[in-house]
């Protein structure tokens, strides 16, 4: 899981500084939803939108949650206009530290299992497991209640495990 540090909301909001801090997060978020080709435009438009509405940001949520919320809407708009499908999730080829946990699951099987998930399930998996957002933050980004995020995550993991079991007869 990526280590995402909770940042304090800057008072002297400078969009350039915000972009420098959060561009990678927003870019990856967009890339995992609409693909690398459209990610740059979407990320750029996310920050332009943020620049326009920065005065309305009241600090009720974390800045990255606010930015990802804008990015989420932008990705939906782009995918609707360009009729883009959610791209598959790419996994690293080799384990990073050679631990047992990583060795016991076949990368290919995991990749297929993730890509089999519905867009809603895959979205919450990415938000929580990859971007490291809490349930409340993920709920704020996609605009659903936290209970829905919890439920979707549960079902996503049930489906993931089922897919993996079908692939290799179980993780154990």
């Amino acid at each position, binding site marked *: *899981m*990526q280590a995402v540090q909770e940042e304090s909301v800057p008072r002297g909001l400078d*969009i*350039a500084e915000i*972009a*420098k801090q959060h*561009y*990678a997060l927003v*870019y*990856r978020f967009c*890339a*995992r939803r609409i693909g*690398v080709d459209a*990610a*740059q435009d979407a*990320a*750029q*438009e996310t*920050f*332009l939108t943020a*620049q*326009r509405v920065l005065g309305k940001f009241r600090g009720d949520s974390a800045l990255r949650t606010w930015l990802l919320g804008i990015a989420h809407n932008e990705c939906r*708009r*782009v995918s609707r*206009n360009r009729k883009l499908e959610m791209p598959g*999730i*790419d*996994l*690293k080829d080799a*384990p*990073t530290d050679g631990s047992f*946990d*990583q060795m*016991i*699951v076949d*990368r290919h099987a*995991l990749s297929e299992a*993730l890509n089999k998930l519905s867009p809603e399930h895959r979205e919450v*998996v*990415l938000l*929580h*497991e*990859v971007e*490291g957002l*809490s*349930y409340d933050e993920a709920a704020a980004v996609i605009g659903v209640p936290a209970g829905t995020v*919890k*439920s979707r*995550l*549960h079902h996503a*993991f049930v489906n*993931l*495990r089922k897919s*993996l079991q079908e692939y290799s007869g179980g*993780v*154990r």
Partner: protein
Amino acid sequence: MTVMEDLKAYVDGELSPARRSEIETAMEQDEALRQEVEEIRVLSRLIGDCVVELEPVGLSETLALLERRKPRPLFIRLFTEPRRLAWVWAMSLFLLVAILMPLVRRSDLDQSVAFNTGETASSDKAAASGQAEIEKAPARVQSGLSGGKSKAVSRSGVDEDVNSPDRQTKGSRGTGSSGYTMNNGTPSKGGAGFGIEIDGLPSQAEMQPTAPKPAGPAEHKQREVAQRATRQLLGQPPLLIRDGDLTVQVASVKKAAPEATTLAKSLGGYVESSSSSSDENDVPQAQMTLRIPEPKFDQAMTGLSKLGLVKSESVTGQDVTAQVADTEARVKVLKTSEQSYIAMLAKARKVDDALSIRDRLDDVRQQIESMEAQAKTLRDQATYSTITLALAEKVEAPKPQPAPGWFDTAWSGAVERASGLGKWLAEVGMNLVLLAPAWVPIVGLAWWLGRRRRG
């Protein structure tokens, strides 16, 4: 919700303490649950660790774009981002045209009115100039008469106008106003008749009947007659035409009108006309025109002023001594000419000559009668001055309205301004609605292009 459904939330630490302890209690009693939790934890960590971290691209471009789009005041963005704010330009232009068009049209109207007024002023000036010339003409005649230059006057007014058709034309063109004035006896207003000749049209002098040139001694005699008549007139008191205009407020019109009549008669005058009426408030009024012997004019004005409170008074006077002298002199000259024509008629041998001389004789007699009537009228006006008397009873003046306070003034001003603003907004609104087919597609296109460029 079952324990199984909360296992993922338990692993993620998203459960309340109470629910968390419930799950832990259940796990202690169930080995399968512990196994489930472990699998979920492993899978969760694995997903986080295995997902490829994409290398972000486009940060520098985004920063540059953000710098370009840095929020600035709208009026600066209008110039730095004209394409993006094309719809603002379009709306501004439309509003500007909507506001300025009525002003430009009003300005054109004002200019047109000013131009017409200027023309009127110019023509007024020309008329005034003509009037000045007219007023100068008798003065010149007067100075000529009193200053011993009667010969010069006689030459332009008698010799050239009447006796010599050739010289008459020259004189009329050359001397202009004096020739014309002396011909008619009374000045006429307007600059067109003074020294201005229109090609193809006969001049005033040319329209005068031409007469055969009398013999030299006769001409001499005419000059002498004219000079003698002038000298005779100048020896007499001046002939003045005086008009008085008097408005008097009286206690009773019924009493004042007979008093005015009595006064006029006592001074040797008479009432030329009188009328009485009532105004819209039933206040009696009377208008009288009194003719008073000229020497008693001042006395009559004083007497009439005593009838009540004088509201207005004006007196105009005109010295017609020179005019009468000139007219009478010309009559005498024309009579001399008449005698000459009669003598010539008696000597005429041919019928054509006799008829021609007869025509001239008739013209001369016609002129004589006209000038005699003119002189008589002037003498009559100079003998009896005219006083126009207006009598009116006093009217109770209505009580003056108290001056409005500052609040009323401010309120009425605000209402008037609000009304004006409302009318203006309504006008702009109506224009926007009526011209919607023209501007809506432009604005819509600009908006769509902007959206497309952003998207």
